[in-house]
């Protein structure tokens, strides 16, 4: 992953750039007193989405296309160890991303009022499973080039409509009503809540869990190891 410059752009440069740019300008319609407090949970969601969905999905799509997965399937590695290796890689990258973003956020004046760490970790875990499931569902069926376009397109839609930069309340009513059930909206909202209160919005949590389980089942059922 790290050998490809575009991955570095996706995983580090874009989230940090969005965080710095929109926290220092008045371009976003937000009612929060401190813009960084609104932005930070959304950018953390974006980091999870970029690693677990886009990066994993695109890499896996090309591995399928190049026959890497088929080739590994003839070794003693086995499916379980391969999945475990991918999960470990995602976790390591996400930890590095979150640490970097939290440092940048704190430097920009982020001040979470009441952090429920256990809740934050659980929500991040469910969010990661959800986006990994979506990424692998696409990667496991589509041709590498189409998968690349689909992952990037979905990333953009979930970024714009997912309560990451703009609150769903600011969207037109009909669009906002649909957008609030997108996985990125649910993750952003749950993180915003977990970083500023001890309460857990059960409906959002159940909805995110449903997305996660559906996406993971779909990935397992539909995944093809080679084109």
């Amino acid at each position, binding site marked *: 992953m790290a050998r490809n410059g575009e991955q570095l752009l996706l995983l580090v440069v874009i989230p940090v750039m969005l965080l710095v740019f929109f926290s220092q300008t008045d371009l976003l319609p937000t009612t929060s007193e401190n813009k960084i407090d609104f932005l930070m949970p959304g950018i953390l969601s974006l980091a999870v989405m970029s690693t677990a969905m886009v990066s994993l999905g695109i890499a896996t799509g090309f591995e399928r296309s*190049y*026959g890497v997965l*088929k*080739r*590994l399937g*003839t*070794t003693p*590695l*086995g499916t379980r160890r391969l999945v475990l290796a991918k999960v470990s890689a995602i976790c390591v990258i996400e930890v590095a991303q979150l640490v970097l973003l939290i440092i940048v956020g704190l430097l920009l004046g982020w001040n979470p009022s009441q952090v429920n760490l256990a809740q934050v970790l659980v929500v991040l875990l469910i969010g990661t499973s959800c986006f990994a499931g979506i990424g692998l569902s696409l990667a496991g069926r589509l041709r590498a080039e189409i998968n690349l376009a689909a992952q990037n397109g979905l990333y953009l839609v979930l970024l714009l409509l997912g309560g990451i930069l703009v609150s769903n309340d600011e969207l037109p009513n009909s669009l906002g009503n649909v957008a609030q059930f997108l996985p990125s909206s649910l993750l952003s909202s749950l993180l915003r809540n977990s970083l500023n209160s001890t309460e857990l919005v059960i409906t959002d949590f159940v909805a995110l869990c449903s997305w996660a389980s559906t996406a993971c089942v779909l990935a397992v059922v539909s995944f093809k190891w080679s084109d």
Partner: protein
Amino acid sequence: MSAKSCELRTVMVMNISSQSHEVAISVRDLVVDYKQLRAVNKISFNAKVGEVTVVIGPNGAGKTSTMEVCSGVRTATSGEVSVLGLDPKKDRIKINSQIGVMLQDGGVYPSSRVFEVAQHYCNLYGNRTTADELIDMVDLGRQKKTSWRKLSGGEKQRLSLVLALAAKPRVAFLDEPTSGVDIFGRDLIRGIVRRLADDGCAVIMATHELDEAQRVADHVLMFQDGNLLANAPLTQLRASAGNNQTLEDIFRSLASNSSKSREVQ
């Protein structure tokens, strides 16, 4: 049908249990379908330890499908396959530690470098051999730091062979190992294949280059349209056809007879 053709057909259906070597791969009534297309049509054969079994036939004859079923990459539609006494699908992890597979199209990430891919595969098999040893064996020492995408076609084939050899395999499946390889590379690969078999490995190698097959085969499986035209030791096949006949002549004769008999039916 000429007398020679009759003899050939006798060899073609030769008793597959005539064995001086232990059977490593046993295939019985194998069928592989792709939706409406039958790629492999009820074939049976054995491949033995210490022998190079060459699978020959034109493109789309069923060679790769057969190899993929035997190596556990593909599921058979029906039939029985046993590799080292194990089921390639059910006992996949057990079998995978004992077989080496060279796929037709690499299966390597383009940015991966020669040494690191070889090292990675040696690690996967518990370091039974070293990356340096394998790289030297296929004469890729000068390309150690070269990425896959920058290798020539022949160099890619040699690296693919390294990945199969990292297993120190008891059974090696090599799908067109000399395709796109220059004359010196072919000699090198042929030598490695021969040594593998002499060291007790059952080598099963697909190719559509009949001259190549003639140089390296102990046993020949001839495929056409998913059917097995011949299943016999090379020496016996050539003796039946007359020793001045090449494998190409034999294949043409069998393929023509097979087409005629289908037309009659």
